[in-house]
Structures are given as structure tokens and as C-alpha cells.
């Protein structure tokens, strides 16, 4: 594993998962790969936090799951965003943007 990996900030994994599912259903492994690729290998998420997060989001009704065939034709569980999940994504995104703007402002002061 690379050396420049950064641990996720607490609470951001939910936002990331919701965002990645916005473009369509995906299984757990796909999500780990996409996080790695999209963050240009800066972020990596391990199984230990991803699956509990997926199940937690499902229990809250933000995503739903369905068994389907994966690209290599094996049975895999696919997760998809629900309507409530879309609303949640918008809300969390706004919260995050406000937070990062605020953080940026603070960091820029001399």
C-alpha cells in the first residue's frame, strides 16, 4: 500500500458513499476502487469501515440493496441510492461545503 494515504475524516465516508452511488448502483468492491481512483490514490477506505457504513446507511433507508451479477458474472450485492438518500446527499454536501469554506477562511488568516 502507498505511503501518502490519508485517513478519512470522521463522518465523511457516508458523504462519499452517497456521492459515488449517485451515478448508479455499485457493489462494495467497486466503491473501494472508485474512491481510490477518484481521489488519485490519496484516500483509501478499508473493508472494516466500508461495510458497516453501507449497512448503517441501508438501515437508515438512504440506500437500498439488491443481489445481482457483477462484471465477472458472480453474485454480488449492489447498493443504490434511494429518494431519501438523494435528499441526504444534498444536505450533507451543503454541510460539508459550508464547513470547508469556513475552514479555508480560518486557515488563510495570517
Amino acid at each position: 500500500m502507498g505511503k501518502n494515504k490519508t485517513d478519512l475524516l470522521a463522518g465523511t465516508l457516508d458523504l462519499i458513499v452517497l456521492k459515488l452511488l449517485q451515478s448508479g448502483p455499485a457493489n462494495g468492491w467497486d466503491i473501494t476502487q472508485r474512491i481510490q481512483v477518484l481521489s488519485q490514490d490519496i484516500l483509501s477506505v478499508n473493508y472494516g469501515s466500508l461495510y458497516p457504513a453501507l449497512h448503517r446507511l441501508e438501515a437508515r433507508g438512504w440506500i437500498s440493496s439488491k443481489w445481482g451479477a457483477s462484471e465477472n458474472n458472480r453474485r454480488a450485492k449492489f447498493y443504490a441510492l434511494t429518494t431519501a438518500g438523494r435528499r441526504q446527499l444534498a444536505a450533507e454536501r451543503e454541510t460539508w461545503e459550508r464547513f470547508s469554506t469556513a475552514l479555508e477562511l480560518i486557515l488563510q488568516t495570517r
Partner: protein
Amino acid sequence: MLNWLKLRLRALFRRGTMEEELDEELSYHLERDIQRHIARGMSPDEARSAVRRSFGNVEALKEESRDARGTRLVEDLLADLRYAFRVLRRAPRFAAVAVLTIALGIGANTAIFSVFDVILLKTMPVEEPGDLFFLDVVGSAGINGAPPYPCFERFRDDSQSFSGMAAFQVHGLTLKIDGYAERVVGQLASASYFDVLGVEPLLGRMLAPEDERLDPPVTVLSYRYWQRRFGGRPDVLGKTIAYRDHVLTIVGVTPPEFFGLQVGTPIDLTIPITVVGADQLGDGGSWWFDAVARLEPGVSSQQARAEIDPIFQRFMRNRMSAQARAQHFDHMELTPASRGFGQLRNQFSEPLLLVAGIGGLVLLIACANIANLLLARATARRQEFAVRVAIGAGRCRLVRQLLTESLLLFAMGSAVGLLFASWAGQMLVSFFAVGRNPILLDLRLDWRTLLFTAALCLITGTLFGLLPAVRAARVEASLDIKKGTSRTTGSRLRLPAARLLVVSQVALSVILLVAANLFVRTLANLRALDVGFRADEVLTFRIEPLESTYPTERLAALWTMVLDRVAIMNETAARFYFDDQDSLGARVKLLDRVYEVIGVAGDSKHNSLRDEIPTVLYLPVLQPVDGLRQLTLAVRTTGDAASLINAVRGEVRELGPDILVTEVAMLEQQIDRALLQERLVAMLSGGFGVLGLLLAAIGLYGVMSYAVVRRTNEIGVRMALGASGLAVAWLIVRETLITAGAGVAIGVPLSLLAARAAASLLFGVQPTDAATIAVSAAVLIAVAAISGYLPARRASRIDTMIALRHE
């Protein structure tokens, strides 16, 4: 929301599937990772071990996933329940005794509650019962029925406070169906009756306004009568029934839950009240029916009363003597009708409250036994608890587990108790349904009863399971794993709780025994009263010639008038009117006729055994003072009463057609009926007294046996030092007696208080009767001695050598 629920239900009930899916999901992930490593040039073996390293603790991950499902609490509960079942299966004798004890306690209380509910609590099965009121005429002599019918009509036509009102009257009617005469409980009612109550027809229709014209006359059947008499056939609509000179057409059937407005006297059918005829309807000086009215929304009963009372006062002006008005027709009052007529309620509220209290005491005693059993078991299971604490079970978790176990016990006990209650309930129903005017109670295990039982189960289970559970959770892991059952050291700590429970059991038993004693003696005293007649082997029945066949002119011939006008008075009358002198030959005027007194009869009881004897003038039945329409005969029998009644029916049939023989009963049964309330209380308090005593004895026996086991070691030492078997036995018996003595000492003053509260239900015995209390205390001490004797004998036979090695 629906999705959320589905997910959790799936998590609970398809737990296995969920686990498998989680496994499959993770193994898929694992496999893809391995493939990726291979694609980048690793060997399959290298790839596998690399991935396995990065995966880390899979179990912890699974655990976290499970928590994410949010059903942890329920899953734990289910696990606790499974464990509790296993534990109980391993101790079947303990479980059986506990379940049976709880079943008796909860079953008895459920049965009492179902009667209590039907007679005292339940509202009528009608729409918005809280808005219904009876319109009663009140005078100094008490509450009467509705005002005279013409006055009722003025209320109905002139008042604004009510959305509707109806007149009704319930009494026995004689009908002829398909040529056969029979007697039913009939209700004469205004056409508005069902509208006012909000009762919808099950079949056909209810009464309509034009039905009061009796053109044609119609009737509505009750569900019970429809089932009983017509087998529930739907083609009953249109059938006709003869009543007096009317031919009634059946137009509808009321729903099963509707029984009229009088608990205990369900009606069979309803006829428009106008059948009584214009004369009776126009009568302005008597009350003969009742009126029920529904308040207009937003109107209070005081406002309504303020509106109708002036109407009543205007109507009554100059109608009767001032004295009669003050006594019987003084003013109007509104009585809540939500729970129907109050007769049964008034008669039974005090005895039922008392019986419910007694039932509660029995339940407490039973629960104390359970708590004791649980305490003893908790001690026996110390090692198990210690192991659980040592491997990481929190004490809270342990208490929860034990509480689950006791609640499971109580739930099983309650389930058996419900069976017991439905049986006991039927016994109580048949107990009420005796004599000529039986009280017919509609008992059923409805949701109210089930709710009561569930609440009782939950409260008692938590209350009496908590103490043993909390005590059990106070284990020292390091000490108790090694030792298993601890020795004498623990006895000081734990026994006081058990002792305290037994002392309170004995105290409660004293109250029960004193109550049983007092009420059984009350019943015996009433039974021993000189009623003035011999009730045994007397059959009574009523003969009633049908009005349609026997108009008044023919009746006279039937009763064959005798012209002699003679009378006999009882001793009380002779004393009251003649000071016991010269009563023979005196002339008495009664309703314009003069009678000659030819004898004085001994006094006898009439309506009630408790009442003073009234003054009575006996006239021969053949000189009726007013229109005699029916006659009750008393026949002294020598043989089988059942075959006699057939002979009577045969004789009556030969007299002519259409003469009914009704209300057949033995005179003794009538006395039973008159003593219903006292018999109920005596039977239940007696039964509960015995039950409570038995439970307390079991409790004492259990605690003393347990003490002997725990002190085996100590007893062995005593015996090795020279104590005789007798001395050891006395040690145990003495302890039992001290415990029981303490219970009696607490129980006696409590029972004195309780007895004083129930004084009005006693007859011929004082609530502070010293003999009663002495007998009860003596019985308890004797029973305690016996309960202590068995463990004491066991203690005296302990083998010294074995005892000293006893751990």
C-alpha cells in the same frame, strides 16, 4: 418507513440469512482483491496472504455490521429468552411448581376481574355511552323510574337539551309462537330507543317512528334469542309472534353485543311501548317505565336538568297530595346511563371489591413464594453467574437475563392462569344464574381481561423477579467460581430477605383466614335464622293462564270464587295492631272489603332474610283483592322434584289450553338466590383462605428446608459436639415458629383493620370477634409447626461425618 421496518423484521427473523449474505458479500470482496493482486503480477498464494493480512479482524467487522442493523436489543432479548427456556427445561420441577403457583394466583385474579368488569366497570355496548342519562323522578323515599308518560312526552317535544330520548320497560312477557306459549324477557320501548342508543341492526331493521302506531305491530329480536329460539336462521324476518291480542311481525335482529340496559338481565325481544294501550300511556300519576336520553353535544347534564325540571313541576302541579309528591314525585334528576342500571352494581360493588382485595392478597402470597424460589435458585446458580461475569458479562446484562427468566415464568404461569380463569369464570357465571330470576352474566375473555392479565403478569414478574436478580448479580467472580455454592457465610446475607418474605406471607394469611372465618360464619348465621317456614322439599311454580284465551270474566270461573271473607294475620301484625289481645274475630277493612280474622300465624321471613319481619295479613287465594292474573303455588314434595314438575304440567294441561307453568324452582334455591351475595363472598374468601394458607405453608417449608441444607455443616458440628437429634429438630421448629409468630403478630392488627372496613357485610358476628382471631392464629401456628417439622426431621437425621465434609 416501510422499508426500514422490513429491513429490521428481516434482521430479526431471517437472522441466519442475513449472516450468510454478509459472509458472501465479504468473500466476494476478498476474491476481487486477490484477482487484482494477481493481475498486477503476484502469485495466487502471495496474493491470498497479502489480502488476508490487510483484511484484519473479520469478526469485529461483522459485529459492527450487525450493530448497524440496529436490532441489537431485540436480538439480545431473543437470545436471553432462548437461554431462559433452556434453563427452565433443565429444572422442570422448579418450573412446574412456579408456573402452577403463578397460574393459581393470576388465574383467580383474572376470573374475579372478568366478573368485576362486567358488573362494575364496563360501559354499555352502545354509541358514546357517556352522553346517555336516565331521567329519574326523585322523592324523599328514593329514586324512582321515569315521570308519568304524558310528562315524558312533554320532555320529548319541548326540551332542547337532548338529541333524543326513549321510554322503555323490561319485564317477563308471555308469547305464543307456532301455537306454543312461552315466557321471555321482553322489552317495551319507544320507537326511538335504538336510535338514541345508536344500535345498528345485525339483520333487517330496528324500530321506526311509524311502528308506534302498531299498524302492523312489529318486534325486534335480540341476537341471543334469535340463536336460541330460531337457530340463527336468516328467514326469521317476516315470521309472526302472538302477544296478547297482537300479532307481531319480526323485522330485525340486534347485534350480539347488545343485551339491553340492565347487566345480568339480557332481553329477548323488543316491542313498541304503545302496546300497553292508551289508558296506561295516559296515566298521569304513576311511574311504570324508565327513560333514557342522549345529551345534545355541548350540553351538560346540569343544564339539561335545569331545563326539564320546570316542565316536570308544571306537569305535576295539583295532580296529587303534597305528601305523595314529596315522597315520590319531588323533582327530576339525571343519572349517568353509561354502565346501564345500577341495581346489580349497587348490590355487588362492596362484596366484589372485597373479593378482589382478597384475591390480591392471595396473589401477593403466591408471588412471595416465587420470589423465594428464585432466591434459592439464584444461590444454587452462583457458580454459573460467576463464570458469566468472569468471561465479561456485565452485571446489568446478568440482571436482564434473570429478569427475562422470571418474566418468562410469569408469562407461562399467566397463560395457564387464563385457562384456569375461563374455567373459574364459567363456575362464577353458573353461580349467579340460580333461582327464579337468574342473573345472566356475559363473561368472556375479551381484550380487557387479556390486558389486565398481561399487566398483572408484567408488574408482578418485574417486581418479584427484580429482587432475586439484583441479589444474584452481586457475585464475586474469583470467589464463586471456585466455591460453587458457598457455605454458612452467605446465610446471614441472604436469609433475611427470604425470612422477610415468609413473615409477610404469614401476616397476609392471617388476614385471609380471619376474613374467611368471618364470612363463613356470616353465611352460617343467616342460614340458621328461623325463616318461619320449612323450605326443604317445597317446589314453587307459577301458573299463568294466557290473557288471549282467558279474559277476566273466564278467569273468575277459573279461580272459582269463594264468598267467605276471612283472613289470618301473623304475630307481628297481631302485636302491632292488637297488642296480642282480642285479635281473633276482629274485623279488618282492606280495599273496601271487610275480612274477619280467624287466626294468628307464626312470623316468617318474606323478601329478605336480613330485614325485619313485616306485618302480614294472609287472605285465601280465592278472594283476590285485585285482578289476579297469575298464581304462584307451593307444593310440598316427598320424592323427586323433577318428576313432580312433569306431573304438575300434566295436571295443568288437563285444566285447559294455554296455561303456562313458569318460574319453577325449589324453595331452597330461592333462599340460595336471596343469599347469593353472602354465599359468593363466603365461598371465595373460604377458598382463598385455604389457598393462601397452603401457599404460606409451602413458603415456610421451602425456606426452612433450604436453611437446613445450607446449615448442614453447622448442624454436623453441633451433633459432633453432642447435640441430640431432638435438640437439632427443635432448633429448626423453633425458628419456624418464631417466623410464623412474627407473621401472626403483624397480621392480627392488620386483619382487625380490614375486618372493620368490611363490617357492613357481616351478620351476627363482630369484626373484632376474639374467637375468630384466636382460631385463625392457632390454625396458622399449627400449620407452621407442620411445615417446620418435615425439614426438622431431616435435620435430626443428618449424618455427622457426611455433614462435616459437606461443602
